[in-house]
């Protein structure tokens, strides 16, 4: 008896209030959109194999990279870790039976689905070609593509992320079990908490911005239209006020996963627990004061450039605190190299490169040289794909035994982790070089001397594609043929590992009491003596 076998039938899933089932629904939906977005990325790389624009016309290319961005950001990266792993494990980690608001949780998934359907409608109806940033006045005056349906999709999907964030904050505040103090929370909970703050405060601003763009397009009200006294830069401010914090929505939950895996597979408490916890909150707070670094070439004043440059550099501090603390956790730990750990190492390396190149872009002088080139494309893919996607895969492998009760096959998954790492570097490292050489982003054609690096990149994307397909195949295979995992295959300390796999609908039979610190491996060893066999 567990949360999956308790009730059967489609309706028992579609009307469920169980956070674990909603997490599975989310997992299935975001995986679908990941592969749609991935296919679009494949098309982009295929077009860029040759210098001419030959696979598709330039305006088709514009639509393809726009849809790639919109799908990957709003329908994959933003909900990826929080809505699946966070949804599944935050209540379990804090010893609760469910999230505080199960109906709102389900509503959030439905909002996501409606958003997803609107995006698919947009694609079928002919796509949109503004880039995912909806830059005005391009989006309000100069394109005839489906800006309205895309805007609606993002508006609706935005509410799905507001509801998720709101639910997490309430749950973490009000649903912790006895003894679960704030500084006994697993760091995964802390980082999701920080990301939730960003979702709750940032997303509504995006919502109102989209409403204004829609009104500008339909009624022509002029807030963003300079001919009527409006200001396109105001749009940029409002848009990036959400969309910069959004990159921290996309990375913070991933950092939470890494804290869990690094600790578990080096058998040590996370070094500087408090510093890591507060660095998540610091990233969330600083994240709200750096948005204008996206606008250095858009005519903001030199003084704002100076201030925002400085503030941007400050974000590097809490990020570096995390990396240093993870490294110190590894120091003298008894490290093992299971798949989640391989992905975590991938994360640490690639995120560090992505983060450091971010410092170049935060410095206003170099930014003016490098922005709108492939350097920036490489930078944010190192953070988003090399960072978040690696962390997502680390998390999926790490918690797969708990979610399904089955182990994934270890050897082939290690292979997939290595293939992903190689494919990723081959895809995106050449783009740093292309960027410094001056290849602009968002063009279907480029001068022939850039071809060799683009060929590397396309070859890498192919390898990367294989690296992403492998987990889908063997994870689905393992649902039926994987080894039975047992309650705690990794000997991890979180409360989620102290109950059966897959968990009961109520998560715990007896309401848990937290009587030890987080990541206390000594407690776990003493606990082993008392362990009781699980009830099938």
């Amino acid at each position, binding site marked *: 008896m567990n949360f999956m076998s308790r009730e059967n039938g489609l309706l028992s899933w579609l009307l469920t209030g169980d956070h674990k089932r909603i997490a599975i629904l989310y997992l299935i939906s975001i995986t679908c959109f990941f592969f749609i977005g991935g296919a679009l990325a494949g098309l982009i790389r295929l077009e860029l194999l040759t210098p001419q624009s030959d696979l598709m016309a330039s305006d088709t290319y514009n639509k393809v990279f726009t849809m790639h961005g919109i799908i990957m950001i709003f329908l994959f990266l933003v909900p990826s870790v929080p809505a699946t792993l966070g949804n599944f494990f935050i209540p379990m980690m804090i010893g609760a039976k469910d999230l505080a608001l199960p109906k709102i949780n389900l509503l959030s998934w439905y909002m996501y689905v409606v958003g997803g359907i609107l995006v698919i409608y947009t694609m079928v109806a002919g796509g949109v070609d503004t880039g995912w940033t909806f830059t005005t006045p391009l989006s309000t005056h100069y394109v005839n593509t489906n800006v309205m349906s895309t805007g609606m999709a993002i508006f609706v999907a935005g509410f799905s992320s507001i509801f998720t964030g709101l639910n997490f904050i309430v*749950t973490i505040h009000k649903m912790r079990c006895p003894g679960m103090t704030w500084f006994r929370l697993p760091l995964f909970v802390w980082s999701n908490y920080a990301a939730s703050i960003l979702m709750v405060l*940032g997303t509504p601003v995006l919502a109102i911005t989209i409403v204004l763009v829609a009104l500008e397009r339909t009624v022509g*009200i*002029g807030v963003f239209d300079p001919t009527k006294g409006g200001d396109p830069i*105001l749009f940029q401010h409002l848009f990036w006020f959400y969309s910069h914090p959004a990159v921290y929505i996309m990375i913070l939950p991933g950092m939470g996963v890494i804290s869990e895996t690094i600790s578990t597979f080096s058998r040590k408490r996370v070094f500087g627990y408090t510093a890591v916890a507060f660095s998540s909150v610091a990233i969330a707070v600083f994240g709200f004061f750096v948005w204008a670094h996206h606008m250095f070439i858009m005519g903001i004043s030199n003084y704002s450039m100076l201030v925002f440059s400085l503030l941007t550099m400050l974000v590097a501090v809490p990020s570096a605190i995390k990396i240093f603390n993870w490294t110190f956790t590894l120091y003298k730990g008894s490290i093992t190299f299971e798949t989640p750990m391989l992905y975590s190492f991938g994360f640490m390396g690639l995120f560090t490169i992505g983060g450091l190149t971010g410092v170049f872009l935060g410095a206003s002088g170099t930014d003016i040289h490098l922005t709108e080139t492939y350097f920036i494309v490489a930078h944010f893919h190192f953070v988003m794909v090399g960072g978040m996607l690696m962390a997502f895969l680390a998390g999926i492998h790490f918690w797969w035994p708990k979610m399904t009760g089955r182990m994934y096959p270890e050897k082939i998954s290690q292979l997939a982790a290595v293939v992903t790492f190689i494919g990723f570097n081959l895809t995106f490292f050449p783009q740093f070089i292309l960027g410094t050489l001056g290849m602009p982003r968002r063009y279907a054609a480029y001068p022939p001397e850039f071809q060799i690096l683009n060929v590397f990149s396309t070859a890498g994307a192919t390898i990367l594609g294989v690296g992403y397909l492998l987990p889908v195949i063997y994870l689905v295979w393992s649902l039926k043929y994987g080894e039975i995992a047992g309650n705690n295959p990794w000997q991890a300390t979180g409360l989620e590992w102290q*109950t059966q796999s897959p968990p009961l609908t109520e998560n715990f039979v007896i309401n848990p009491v937290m009587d030890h610190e987080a990541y206390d491996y000594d407690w776990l060893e003493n606990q082993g003596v008392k362990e009781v066999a699980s009830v099938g």
Partner: protein
Amino acid sequence: MSDSPAVMHAETADSHHEHPAYQRHHFESVAQQFDATNFAMWLFLLTEVMFFGGLFTAYLIMRNWYYPAFVEASHQLNIGWGTANTSVLILSSFTMAMGVYNAHMRRKSGLVFCLILTFILGLGFLGIKSIEYTEKYEKHHIPGFHYSMSSFLNPASDPEVHNSYPDDKPLGLDMARHTELYFFLYFAMTGMHALHMIIGIAILGYLIVRAQAGDFTTGHITYIENFGLYWHFVDIIWIFLFPLLYLISRH
């Protein structure tokens, strides 16, 4: 073994302890349920603040840029109706607060009476707002629909307003065009506020039916309390809109 979270007994998995029907099973107590949902409502209101914040930002920036246009355009608003509406809304917040009080006191008839009063006052607010909107429509002050600048290019052509504000100078064409931005922001902000009122009134209708059935006077005050928060929030938005749109720069 009772100190361990790991212990499992299948036979206790589905057992329930005694609790009132309105307590959802994943909460430990009614108090926890109330605390959690109440906190969630406060957070939701925070997202609303951010949502309206975008519009307030746009308003403040553009007011700064096009000060003369915004001042003269604001003279077009009917301060009498605006004040009346403010009083209606504050009164409705009072009746809502009395409703919450009655729910706490478990007085059904008092609760239903207060909710119905709030409902009527809410409708009254929308009624007055629609009179004001109609005035704007008649004077072609709706942006995007045959917008007319004549009241600002030539104030004398609009005797009603001109008599109350004889000092208003004719605006140059460039500045007069920016009155359209004022009216857009006026409609966007009050319209978004009215939309929240409409949603609130709809929810209020549902709550009246439930309250009449006696659902909220048995100690289950979560819905009433949280809706009260929402209603007061919508009220507070207006308390900011009224001075910003109607009152400042009016002598």
